[in-house]
């Protein structure tokens, strides 16, 4: 009898020891575990000499042609390099040493550096760029950001739509070191675009032989930037080492970088405070007040992006611009950033964030000595304009909110968004006397509801992809699927077949955008500003604040870490302090 019980326990024990068999010989660190899958990493310096950075998510991709997300963008910034490179101050020459632009601004000839190589030692030529740009225009590749190429390159859209051939696309390698580019119209920010990942080179032989996901395997992740990948473990980490074949390798000091994928903010912060992580960003809100007081490594940077309220302009109530203005003016933006978001955000007076520049380099929305933009469109960044808000609401027929149907505000389920929504609810109650009901939805559902215009007010947020106001403004064009306020003067049967309620005043905005595409310099600046004026005078959205990028760089362990204009980490010149 006893034997039976014992044998039962033995069987159980065996079941687990089979399943956890490998655990028994465990002392090997996790980094070595997936050795069967990944080739032995070249670790000249040992992983203890690597910079440890929390990426915070397992990126969807870091194939430059396919990526459309910030997290993948950080990796690409360090692993690949375009003709030009985005730095903190703008763009500088990178793979291209110089370029010529024709007088009409439509033809660019890039001259590549001589002798550049890919991380596997193969020569890097103009053909690699030609291939990558054409790949971005390929409908079968279906890159999210294909429009960033097809909009500008001659023949790009035609090839994408099947009305043109690949040879008609306006990019051609004249020889190994010369790339000629033909644009449909002069693009003021084209050199900024060529620094963007969609314009970075990829290797034809690698992509064609391995298909999508080539970048996830160290053997086939061939890159041309300062670092190359040596390991990737799904959801856990990604390791890069210095790319000795990079043309400027002499100035790359780091032996390697370990990118972690710790999702939980407090866990990552704890890792930093324990000395295990050196670089973090997007710090959890609750920790910000403490870090601001205690930790000099905690730094807040402005981010090119705006947090705002969408008004559904097709809605029975919000079709009235006076009501939209009332809701916007009732928001105390200064109190908002100081009491609610607390991350050093800037109160917003317009849609284009501070930090975006005009053609002469001046800030579109300069800040005063207190870090405030000038009042604009009736919005005072320092306080709510209660009187005018109330007057507007009364004028619209709802004095003190009386007679309004039930008003709702929709946000996607998330702690921070909830706090923000509750603060807005409070301000609207206090300043307008209107009760607003809060609704929340799971992200995927929220996106669909917003795009379909099935809401009254909804949260909105947009981060710029490149350093030009167009990256913000083209949200509200007729054809944009991200035009959540449903602000369209004409029907868009392809992009938004549901939107049958038209808003004639949007034509003014559309015309200004069109104008900006065919002008340059001051004229273009004026066109962009006119577009913003049209958007804001109609108060299609209520801007609340400009985003900030909260970061921690452990200055006792690392120096020379850079952030680019659109806040991508650049570790090219970083160095560990021994």
């Amino acid at each position, binding site marked *: *009898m*006893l034997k*039976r*019980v014992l*044998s*039962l*326990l033995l*069987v*159980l024990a065996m079941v*687990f020891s089979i*399943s*956890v068999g*490998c*655990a028994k010989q*465990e*002392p090997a660190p*996790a*980094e070595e*575990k*997936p050795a069967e899958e990944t080739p032995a990493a070249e670790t000249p310096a040992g992983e203890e000499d690597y910079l440890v950075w929390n990426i915070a998510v*397992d990126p*969807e991709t870091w*194939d430059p042609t396919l990526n*459309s997300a910030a997290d993948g963008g950080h990796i690409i910034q360090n692993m690949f390099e375009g003709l030009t490179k985005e730095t903190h101050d703008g763009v500088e020459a990178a793979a291209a040493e110089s370029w010529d632009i024709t007088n009409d601004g439509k033809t660019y000839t890039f001259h590549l550096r001589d002798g550049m190589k890919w991380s596997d030692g193969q020569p890097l030529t103009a053909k690699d760029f030609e291939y990558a740009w054409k790949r971005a225009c390929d*409908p079968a590749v*279906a890159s*999210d950001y*294909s*429009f960033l190429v097809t909009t500008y390159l001659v023949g790009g859209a035609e090839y*994408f*739509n099947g009305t043109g051939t690949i040879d008609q696309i306006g990019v051609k390698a004249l020889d190994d070191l010369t790339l000629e580019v033909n644009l449909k119209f002069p693009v003021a920010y084209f050199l900024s675009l060529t620094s963007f990942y969609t314009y970075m080179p990829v290797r034809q032989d690698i992509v064609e032989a391995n298909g*999508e*996901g*080539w970048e*996830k395997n160290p053997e086939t992740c061939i890159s041309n930037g300062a670092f190359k990948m040596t390991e990737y473990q*799904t*959801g*856990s980490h990604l390791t890069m080492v210095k790319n000795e074949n990079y043309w400027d390798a002499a100035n790359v000091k780091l032996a390697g970088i370990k990118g*972690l*994928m*710790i*999702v*939980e903010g407090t*866990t990552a912060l*704890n*890792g930093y*405070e*324990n000395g*295990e992580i050196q670089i973090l960003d997007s710090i959890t809100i609750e920790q910000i007040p403490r870090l601001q007081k205690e930790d000099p490594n905690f730094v807040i940077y402005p981010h090119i992006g705006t947090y705002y309220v969408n008004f559904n302009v097709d809605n029975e109530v919000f079709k009235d611009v006076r009501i939209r203005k009332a809701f916007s003016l009732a928001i105390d933006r200064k109190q908002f950033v100081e009491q609610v978001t607390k991350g050093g955000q800037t109160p917003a007076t317009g849609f284009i964030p501070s930090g975006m520049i005009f053609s002469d380099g001046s800030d579109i929305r300069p800040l005063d000595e207190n870090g405030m933009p000038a009042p604009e469109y009736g919005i005072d960044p320092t306080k709510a304009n209660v009187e005018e808000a109330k007057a507007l609401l009364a004028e619209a027929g709802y004095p003190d909110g009386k007679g309004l149907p039930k008003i709702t505000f929709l946000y996607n389920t998330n702690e921070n968004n909830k706090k923000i929504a509750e603060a807005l609810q409070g301000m609207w109650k206090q300043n307008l006397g209107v009760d607003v009901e809060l609704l929340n939805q799971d*992200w*995927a*559902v929220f*996106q*669909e509801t917003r*795009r379909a215009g099935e809401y009254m007010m909804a949260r909105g947020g947009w981060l710029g992809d490149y350093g030009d106001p167009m990256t913000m403004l083209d949200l509200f064009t007729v*054809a944009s*699927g*991200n035009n959540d306020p449903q602000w369209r003067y004409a029907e868009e049967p*392809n*992009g938004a077949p549901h939107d049958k309620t038209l808003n004639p005043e949007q034509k003014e905005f559309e015309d200004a955008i069109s104008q900006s595409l065919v002008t340059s310099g001051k004229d273009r600046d004026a066109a962009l500003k006119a577009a913003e004026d049209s958007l804001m005078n109609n108060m299609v959205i209520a801007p609340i604040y400009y985003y900030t990028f909260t970061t921690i760089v452990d200055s006792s362990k690392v120096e020379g870490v850079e952030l680019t204009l659109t806040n991508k980490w650049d570790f090219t010149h970083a160095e560990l302090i021994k």
Partner: protein
Amino acid sequence: MAKYIVKRIISAIITIWFIMTLTFILMNSIPGDPMSMGKALQPEVEAAVRAKYGLDKPLIEQYLTYLKNYTHGDFGVSFQKIGLTTNRIIADGFPYSLKIGGWSSLFIIVAGIGFGIISALKQNKIPDRVMMIVSTLGATVPSFVFATLFLYVFNRKLGWVPSFGAGTWKHYIGPVLCIGMFSLAYVTRLTRTSVLDVLQQDYIRTARAKGLSEGVVIIKHALRNALIPVVTYLGPMIASLITGSFVVEKVFGIAGIGSLFTTSITNRDYTLIMGITVFFGIFIVIATLIVDVLYVFIDPRIKYD
């Protein structure tokens, strides 16, 4: 017995097919799809992406494709982790969860049954009281509280364990304890109640009357019967521990399958949702089958024909 096992395997296959079909239906009926995760795309781009992933095909065709691929053990390519197969994602994430869950199960079996027996034998005395208080806490304190507290004390204050990840054995102490806490408490209580119950039975009185030593009475006569309800609980428990925990994996920064599963749903990563659900299904069916077979060894009264 062999006949029984064959019968069970056939019913397992039907169960898994059913799980798969149900998941497919539910997944497609919740609002939002893989395309609603990112920025809105131009209509032509969106159409191209849909075509690439077969989302433009009728549902029944998509279903049949899944069915066909699954019979070959191919779980398809993830929608949200470009170019990665579901098989690779599971293969990368599962070992962490397996290790945590496996050690946790072993710990629960040894400690839980042990504590339960001690508690029962010392009923209403100090060791019993202490264990009951501890197990009440174990069953009621949420694992994220316990995990956070554990990190605060053993990582921040004492520095005995690392703050995140899954490298050395030290990394596993926290997750193993946190994930197993509830079940440990439950097994302790279950064993205690069950042993107490058995000790009141007539045959125990008979055994004692025969003059058998207390040790023989407990181990040979009482425990055997007392363990049957515990073993019943162990099957599903092991399956649930090994399939990972979203909360524990998140707090300890471990890339296990529990968090993958949860995020696959919020991300509407259809292939991954299907793949992991079916994988879990297979796992749970097998664990239950093993337990059912074990009954025969533990209790001669049970026979499967």
